[in-house]
């Protein structure tokens, strides 16, 4: 991946205040097309708040978030859009730190719901669907095919009719990623996708994410604590501490940055040290 790839998401001077608390303070970075950009930082650094600003759950206090989708010339100013429009029109999909599947619905339904807007248009806002017209049944078949493709990718085809809440934890994580991909986004935001996965599962996850980047040509934005994931797959890393950006660059650059090392060792509370960081220090205190 070359650094010259065109920008997909440009974050400029993003600040988010909750009353007197400054959760994010003047953050700027660029996520490029066909790249995996990771946001890391100790607990409470404001990573999830960045996501919530990006996906419209919060309105940023200050700052501009520009999304430039690759295929059309226009751009979207995300900070001015309503939450659901960011997913619908701008094509930003996300997953959640605590998995938010539709637990009572089947795995397949979860993937079909994600294609809501296309199916709504095809069903002429339910009229064609109620009448059982051809154009709707065709669209539904296509939706199932897309769902089927993702089911095969995440190896859940056999469990397609299971209630999503009954799946094992690792499968739920993968299903949530597949559901986000079914919206056919141009930017996929993953909030700690490797949390709670065992080493084998997180290796699978790495593969899946690299595949998504390679085959679907979309940009990925990643929040992660698991350094084996971050260091292996990301092209670009942004490090936050107490809401402020402290370092930015390639994984190697970041892991040797003294500011990053200080942030992790100073604020660490149950926080795993990046292996490279721990190895690079003469006397790493255990935390």
């Amino acid at each position: 991946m070359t650094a010259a790839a065109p920008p997909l998401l440009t974050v400029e001077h993003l600040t988010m205040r909750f009353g007197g608390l400054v959760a994010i303070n003047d953050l700027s970075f660029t996520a490029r097309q066909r790249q995996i950009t990771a946001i890391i930082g100790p607990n409470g650094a404001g990573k999830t708040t960045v996501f919530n600003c990006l996906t419209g759950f919060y309105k940023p206090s200050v700052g501009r978030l520009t999304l430039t989708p690759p295929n059309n010339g226009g751009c979207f100013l995300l900070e001015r859009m309503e939450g659901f429009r960011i997913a619908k029109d701008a094509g930003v999909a996300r997953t959640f730190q605590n998995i938010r599947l539709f637990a009572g619905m089947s795995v397949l339904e979860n993937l079909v719901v994600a294609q809501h807007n296309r199916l709504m248009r095809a069903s002429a806002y339910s009229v064609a669907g109620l009448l059982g017209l051809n154009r709707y049944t065709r669209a539904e078949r296509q939706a199932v095919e897309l769902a089927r493709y993702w089911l095969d990718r995440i190896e859940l085809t056999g469990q397609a009719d299971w209630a999503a809440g009954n799946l094992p934890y690792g499968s739920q994580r993968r299903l949530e990623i597949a559901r986000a991909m079914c919206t056919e986004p141009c930017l996929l935001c993953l909030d700690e996708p490797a949390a709670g996965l065992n080493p084998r599962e997180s290796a699978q996850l790495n593969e899946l994410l690299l595949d998504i980047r390679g085959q679907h040509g979309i940009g990925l934005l990643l929040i992660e604590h698991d350094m084996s994931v971050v260091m292996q797959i990301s092209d670009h890393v942004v490090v936050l501490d107490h809401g402020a950006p402290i370092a930015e660059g390639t994984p190697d650059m970041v892991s040797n940055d003294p500011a990053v090392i200080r942030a992790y060792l100073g604020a660490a509370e149950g926080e795993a040290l990046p292996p490279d960081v721990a190895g690079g220090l003469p006397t790493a205190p255990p935390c």
Partner: protein
Amino acid sequence: MLKDALAAAVVAALLALPLLGFRLADSQQGLSLDYRFAWVGYAAAAVFIGRLGMAFAAAAFSRVFQRKRQTLLPLAGRPSRNRKIVGWLLVAAALLLPLAPFADRNLIDKATLLLIYVMLGWGLNIVVGLAGLLDLGYVAFYAVGAYSYALLSQTFGLSFWLCLPFAGALAACFGILLGFPVLRLRGDYLAIVTLGFGEIVRVVLLNWESLTNGPNGISGIQRPSFFGLPFLAAAPGRTTFHEFFGLPFSPGQRIIFLYYVILVLALATNLFTLRIRRLPIGRAWEALREDETACRSLGINPTRTKLSAFALGAMFAGFAGSFFATRQGFISPESFTFIESAIILAIVVLGGMGSQIGIVLAAILLVGLPEWFRDLQQYRMLAFGGAMVLIMLWRPRGLLASREPTIRLAADALEAAPQTAGEAAR
């Protein structure tokens, strides 16, 4: 087990002591206190034995119950045929009911009332069962439908069939009107606001005398006709139903006709719900019930989705309301009190949120049985309350709580990808 039963008995005795133990009796010196400690003993003994019996039953049936709990989850490649068969049998029974030899006027009348509640239950099911919006003021839309038919027919002389879509549309507008302020609310808070809305509509109907005739209600509402043929003994200048078909006149004809009208309306509601559940909007409702935040992250417009659920649910209440008005011939705000909303909601919850047949069964239990057991007089409501408690103990998630997926992967696709044993076991 014994300890638990004893504890329950003690609690029962403590409760029964003030309730049953003392009694005011008339005596020569005026009022005096009577003691009935034996009754307290009976109550405690009954609770003790009952509790013990329940514990034994639970132990004996625990295996059965465990198996049941597992089947609640939709398993791969097993569409339930039974429920479909039960559904068709119910439809056939409903269609043939007026022809049955035991079907007298009274029975058909009660069946009509029952079907109104079934239809209301199905309508509310869209809002509560599918979209998960707890609505305690559903009766308001029922009232809007009833009054709009009554007023339209009295003011403009429009026929029932012409007014029906108007009444539905008006009720849907009220649904949207209610929907707007409560968009941000969930769960309990939503229930409180909808409860208030239901009362507002009733109070307006009660006090807007110039329009609604206040507490006196509207009487002499036009009865429906059979494609223009009225059900009357004689109509000057018009052919009546019995003259046209060469039948002897009988007031039962109108009763049976009304029964079929509500049957058709209710079945239309059912068909609509079953269909829309399989459409994107229906899936979006269910997704909204499961997780609104996730819905928004997938680009589903929560405002539009919620409002459509409110509007469509209200529309069916409007249809049912105009039918109610034409059947009764008289409506007043008395008919649209909170208890009606509560009963309709109880039907939906008891039936198992989102289950169509469950709602029919629950309506039979909640509306049908109390009607049929009027002979029990004052014990009727006691039996009603007791039955509800028992059902909720036996089936805490409603009578038919399991959910069918709205879409399944084709069978061949499933066979091609056998379930991995490790995944299935975990």
